[in-house]
């Protein structure tokens, strides 16, 4: 085996370990299955009963937002698991083995991707029950799901980086909530960003989360033609810009997380 094959095989071994862990840990499983269900039901019924949109049911408008919101929250499992493992001796064991050092992080992010597939499928099914519909071609819909997963994978690396810098589960949880809440709510997830006051509108329109949500709306055919089209550049080109964002996030956070991992474990 060459070193790339070794790295891949080791990454898969670690991913399998994490997948087994998620299956057995009720707190993680809750995050994967229960949270998406609760989010879809809560937001569509609570907000959906108050807000009327022209030409589109609110459930259809909002579900892409809930997809992305749930992903930002379940991608935090990557960071959380890493901080927990850092406090145990398991990384020491890994590091005395002749395995590829990069496998710990790739394995972790890959297993969290599998977990995100589960949670997106759950949300889509519950979404269909509450009135969400795909109005685009199958290819576009597939692209939409692919883009959500790409975002999930890239965001896992972001939370991994934060986690390896902070190193304790409690601090990580606090910071992650503090950062991800405004990231999701200062976006077009639940409200039409054009109706926000000036500075907030600018923040919401340039927020990458908005770009991903808009891209999902476009690809699933959930953008209302009766609403004013977004004027901000990233929202007008949401699909290519969100692809660009994914590439940028990965290019920045993969090497950063790798460096912080080395620093965190060699003390």
């Amino acid at each position, binding site marked *: 085996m060459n070193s790339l094959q070794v790295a891949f095989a080791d990454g898969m071994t670690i991913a399998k*370990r994490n997948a*087994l862990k998620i299956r057995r*840990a009720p707190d993680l499983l809750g995050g994967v299955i229960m949270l998406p269900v609760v989010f879809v039901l809560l937001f569509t019924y609570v907000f959906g009963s108050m807000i009327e949109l022209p030409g589109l049911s609110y459930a259809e408008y909002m579900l892409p937002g809930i997809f992305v919101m749930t992903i930002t929250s379940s991608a935090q499992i990557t960071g959380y698991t890493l901080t927990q493992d850092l406090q145990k001796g*398991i990384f*020491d064991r890994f590091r005395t083995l002749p395995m590829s050092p990069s496998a710990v992080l790739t394995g972790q992010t890959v297993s969290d991707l599998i977990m995100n597939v589960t949670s997106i499928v759950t949300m889509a099914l519950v979404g269909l029950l509450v009135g969400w519909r795909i109005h685009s071609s199958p290819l576009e819909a597939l692209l939409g799901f692919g883009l959500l997963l790409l975002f999930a994978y890239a965001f896992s690396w972001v939370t991994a980086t934060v986690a390896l810098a902070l190193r304790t589960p409690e601090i990580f949880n606090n910071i992650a909530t503090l950062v991800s809440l405004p990231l999701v709510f200062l976006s077009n997830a639940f409200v039409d960003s054009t109706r926000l006051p000036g500075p907030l509108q600018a923040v919401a329109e340039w927020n990458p989360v908005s770009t991903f949500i808009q891209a999902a709306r476009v690809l699933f055919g959930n953008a209302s033609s009766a609403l004013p089209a977004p004027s901000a550049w990233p929202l007008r080109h949401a699909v290519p810009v969100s692809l660009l964002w994914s590439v940028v996030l990965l290019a920045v956070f993969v090497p950063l997380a790798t460096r912080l991992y080395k620093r965190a474990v*060699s003390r």
Partner: protein
Amino acid sequence: MPAAITAEGLVKKYGDVVALDGMELTVPEGTVFGLLGPNGAGKTTTVRILTTLLTPDAGHATVAGFDVVRDARRLRAHIGASGQYAAVDDHLTGAENLEMVGRLYHLGVKRSRQRARDLLDRFDLTEAADRPVQGYSGGMRRRLDLAGALVATPPVLFLDEPTTGLDPRARASLWEVIAELVADGTTVLLTTQYMEEADRLADRIAVVDHGRVIALGTADQLKDQVGGDRIELSVTSAADLETARRMLAPLAVGDMQLDPTALQVTIPVIGGAAALTSALGHLAAERIAVRDAGLRRPTLDDVFLTLTGHETDETSKETVR
């Protein structure tokens, strides 16, 4: 015999704290080497350097012929390590834990599975094999952790305080396992705070304090360094203890130790039984009631106390990993 482990002049600092200050050691193949010392003496830091987890600030070391810094990656295929914080995954079963380690040693699926089953049998964990580790006792976790270190049958094994925190029965059973490994020819470097453990398992012992070796030899050689035998006497009152100390001082060839709670005095002497008879004679003349009296060989505790001037079980102010 070629050396399985060598270390020369290892230095490691954490800010102002010097964890290792010129650590030297040589471990011949197929022997058990004990690093004995209190918390913060540098035992764990030494093991972390030798197992490639840490890079030394100065000095160099080899394990199984590989340099711990330059050949770290290749070296890892030849060692097994088991630490004081049992490195096992709570949510995985015992079997899954060992299979994962086998896969990461690149043994392949079939061999990893077979090896896991063999080791679980050997460590008496067959019944618990398919239960998540969460429900294991402390002793079972340590055995599993040790099994993890043995998956690839490595020629050199590092055991960092393998029995710390275990109850006496779990400790005795782990000792048996370690003794069997050694019989198979594995080289073992063991760190411990327990004299009894070093005495029982190690062929040679290095006493470590403040990041360097302060004495080296077999258990018997170290005991001889301290010289003579020990008389242990207990009396019935604090006043008697003071009198006994005064009366017996002329017999002592080193520092006497008083234990006011146990009302016990320990006197290093030469001449064994004769010294004991004479001590008892002195005390009888003063009408001091002796509750218990005995003669014993020095223990490694005595060795440690003599060499360092402080006890082994003192709680060190700074614990350096």
